[in-house]
């Protein structure tokens, strides 16, 4: 990844993190709100790979935790794991599949929520798992899926199309 590319990705994640904190966290529909930061990170990871996903997730999480005065490192850990996993999926089985962004967003949203519940529990800030999983997660999942296609298209337009190293050589074994 070149320096301008990295700067573009960082700028995108910074702006989206600020928008998530200031705007989207209050757009409550059916008890949930769209996590555009997570969806943008997933789109970026699919387009740019696991390394960018992990570093971008860590950076976006730091901005998010700083802006919300939350536990520093908490969102970083969750987002870097989300970015890395999505990047690996994009580099391997998800490559060139049109449903990859939707599938990744669906799976990651569920895993992200469960992992954050577990982390909260470990930190002694446990919330009712039933309330989160049954009341907050379904609308959030739906809203995340709704914003996936436009956000993926925007991210691809902003940072450029996927650059994955193609196979240069195929050797047929005797």
């Amino acid at each position: 990844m070149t320096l301008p590319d990295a700067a573009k990705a960082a700028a995108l994640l910074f702006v989206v993190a600020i928008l998530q904190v200031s705007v989207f966290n209050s757009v409550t529909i059916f008890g949930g709100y769209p996590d555009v930061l997570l969806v943008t990170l997933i789109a970026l990871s699919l387009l740019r790979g696991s390394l960018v996903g992990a570093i971008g997730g860590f950076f976006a999480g730091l901005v998010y935790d700083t802006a919300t005065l939350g536990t520093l490192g908490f969102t970083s850990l969750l987002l870097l794991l989300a970015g890395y996993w999505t990047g690996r999926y994009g580099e391997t089985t998800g490559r060139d599949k049109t449903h990859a962004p939707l599938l990744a967003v669906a799976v990651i949203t569920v895993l992200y929520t469960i992992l954050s519940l577990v982390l909260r529990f470990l930190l002694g800030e446990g919330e009712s798992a039933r309330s989160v999983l049954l009341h907050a997660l379904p609308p959030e999942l739906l809203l995340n899926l709704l914003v996936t296609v436009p956000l993926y298209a925007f991210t691809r337009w902003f940072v450029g199309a996927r650059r994955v190293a193609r196979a240069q050589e195929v050797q047929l074994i005797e």
Partner: protein
Amino acid sequence: MPRLRSPKLAVLGSSTQRSASYAPRTSSALRRRIVLGALVLASLVLITVYFRESNGGALHSIQGAGATVLSPFQVGAERVAHPFQDAYNWFRGLANAKSQRDQLRLANDRLRRQVIQYKSAQRENFTLRRDLGYVSGPKFPSSYVPVTAAVIAKPPSPFEQKIILGAGAANGVRYASPVVTSDGLVGRVTQVTRHTSQVTMLTDENSAVSAVDLKTNAQGIVRHAQGAGGTLFLDRVAKQDRVQVGDPVITSGWRTGTLTSLYPRGIPIGRVSSVSRSDTSLYTFVQVSPLVDFNALDSAIVLVRKAQAPHR
């Protein structure tokens, strides 16, 4: 008849040695894993140190400085989005505007009658207090200086019921100051930086406020009802107290020796929405509907004690 296959090399791009193509891939995978491991480790260290240190610790200070830097961006984003949010709320409000109007007309008539009664009672109260030389604790709102601030960050997740206000120590906000709106109590300040402050709302698991039912004088502690959205409940209400649906609940503002409640007496919290008793329970279970809409907070008022407030 089986086809005969002979070993061959299918070259799609530039021909390279097989071993040469594996070496960079291996090193790339190794680099990827090292970066991932380092970032996970860094996150865990940050969480641990942040969690263990006090509010004045190094990471908290760095975060405070970072929040100050980010605050103008947050205010800008909030201002840009505000017209769109207003439009969204306007359309959403249209759906039940007519029924709300009728309800509000009835409420207005009732309140007009009450105001006349209260004015008379207030005058009587003032006279009696003066005659008795009555000494009371800090009064709301006369003993406080209001610091009004915009909400620049909303609750980061369903787990945390915390908001960030665009006013901090530089504006006179102090740790543990009560936060209200024109409707009622919101919560209290739990973290202060120079230009921002974090408010833990009543709907947070860790919030608790000593409160009183205004009609029956039943004492209790208002907490968040787990998994019940914005509903609160009045805990520790004695069974003999005849609390009824619709009773207003306000902060009790207790005082024991030199200790006083963080919240002054008289801040409205909500109305009793249900009351239930069981033979096995020691207390009455009282649900309270808050007066504040915690999901639609645009601004809030921090109450700073006059003795603590900076001179203006």
